[in-house]
């Protein structure tokens, strides 16, 4: 089916397969359609149908709040075409970076499956074609018996790879998290689409990095750390990471974080904040090079943010309430220029 989006300066056209989400079809064709979550929650991929028939998909998608039925407003990430369609998109269509990688559909197999803590699981997915992605990007995944795609940030970084590493936090009422936690899913097949997302790290930008993660928000930041480690970025550039979790028992990736600190002891600062318990005596001894704190991660991280931002890029990732709670003071009190903040809300 042919989809057409008319702008004054240009008409964009792309083919969408039956059942394929319009957003995915457009992005796959190299058209930089607007999106953020790619999974129905944020509302960024809003469009209006001016001609043609569509299947709206997930009818309760939170991103559709306040949508106007009379204007035939849809979420492109949920909607598929039932005939040729014309759409209007209420924002500019602009590429984020010249080296953005066109996302595509893949079928992957779960090859590794490991519980990191009581409620965090690490799993690897192998895909048949080798791909590249920017550190900080994510894929959307769909499991066999679960409706709809969910977004997960890659933990690993490797240009040209068949292997994608993810972590998932358990959400007892959640569809995908229930499916994957229920039993060992090694060898299960998943549908994937990606890579996606703009909260990315690019060494050529030459910034110091200030990163704040809540819980599974650490995923994409691990990919950034890994890329930085591979290219010796932290030889000359500083990175401060604040990682918020509940208790010492919830701490994962300790080995990997210690390894980055050990390789670049003078430039890397890694701070672990426990919200619900004090650090252990061993942690407080400082022997492993990491700094352990008690309290909410944003309460520790905000005072450490450099006034005015300097040449620093700020990365925020984690549950939407944490990210929202950080953006406000970052911009209003610390006067960080807004183009120095990149974030992913795990909504």
């Amino acid at each position, binding site marked *: 089916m042919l989809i057409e989006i008319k*702008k*004054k*300066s*240009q008409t964009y056209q792309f083919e969408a397969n039956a059942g394929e989400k319009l957003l995915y079809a457009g992005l796959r064709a190299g058209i930089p359609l*607007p999106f953020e979550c790619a999974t129905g929650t944020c*509302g*960024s991929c*809003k469009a209006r149908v001016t001609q043609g028939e569509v299947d709206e998909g997930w009818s309760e998608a939170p991103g559709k709040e*306040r949508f106007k039925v009379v204007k035939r407003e849809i979420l492109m990430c949920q909607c598929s075409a039932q005939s040729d369609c014309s759409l*209007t*998109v*209420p*924002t*500019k*269509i*602009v590429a984020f970076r010249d080296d953005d990688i066109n996302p595509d559909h893949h079928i992957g197999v779960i090859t590794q499956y490991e519980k990191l803590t009581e409620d965090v699981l690490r799993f690897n997915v192998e895909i048949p074609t080798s791909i590249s992605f920017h550190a900080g990007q994510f894929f959307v995944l769909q499991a066999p018996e679960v409706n709809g795609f969910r977004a997960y940030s890659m933990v690993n970084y490797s240009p040209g790879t068949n292997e994608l590493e993810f972590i998932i936090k358990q959400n007892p009422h959640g569809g995908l998290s229930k499916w994957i936690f229920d039993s060992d899913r090694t060898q299960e097949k998943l549908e994937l689409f990606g890579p996606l997302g703009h909260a990315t790290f690019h060494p050529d930008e030459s910034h110091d990095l200030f990163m704040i993660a809540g819980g599974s928000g650490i995923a994409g930041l691990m990919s950034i750390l890994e890329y930085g480690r591979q290219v010796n970025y932290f030889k000359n550039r500083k990175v401060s990471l604040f990682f918020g979790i509940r208790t010492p028992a919830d701490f994962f990736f300790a080995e990997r974080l210690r390894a980055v600190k050990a390789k670049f002891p003078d430039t890397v600062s890694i701070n672990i904040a426990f919200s619900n318990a004090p650090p252990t005596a061993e942690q407080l001894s400082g022997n492993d090079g990491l700094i352990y704190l008690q309290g909410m991660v944003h309460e520790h991280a905000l005072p450490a943010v450099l006034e005015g931002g300097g040449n620093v890029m700020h990365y925020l990732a984690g549950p939407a309430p944490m990210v*929202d709670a950080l*953006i*406000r003071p970052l*911009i*209003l009190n610390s006067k960080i*220029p*807004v*183009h120095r*903040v990149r974030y992913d809300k795990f909504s």
Partner: protein
Amino acid sequence: MSWKAACPVSDVKQDTLKECTIDGIEILLANVGDGFRAYPPVCPHMEQYLEGSGICANNVMTCDRHLWQWDMKTGEPLGPAEKPLLIYQTKEVNGQIMVFLDEELEYDFDDDDD
């Protein structure tokens, strides 16, 4: 085409935003200290409703979605914002904010050639 009462002056505190609907037209009201401003309800970037996404401080509004910012008095864009906020005329009469509604102001999203 006329002046319409929006809401009592006391309903719109400084550094807050309040949405109301007059004759089916949604508008967003703000208190800029020495007066009021009325804008269309959505962000000119991607149509997010600013009552939820707008952060106001010192007469600067920031949309927390992609951090576009404006001078709330003039609507002029600041920082990364590429478009101004449109503004309806307002005045105060007997403790009410009045808005001059001629036609609904809407952003033109069709100009991605600049």
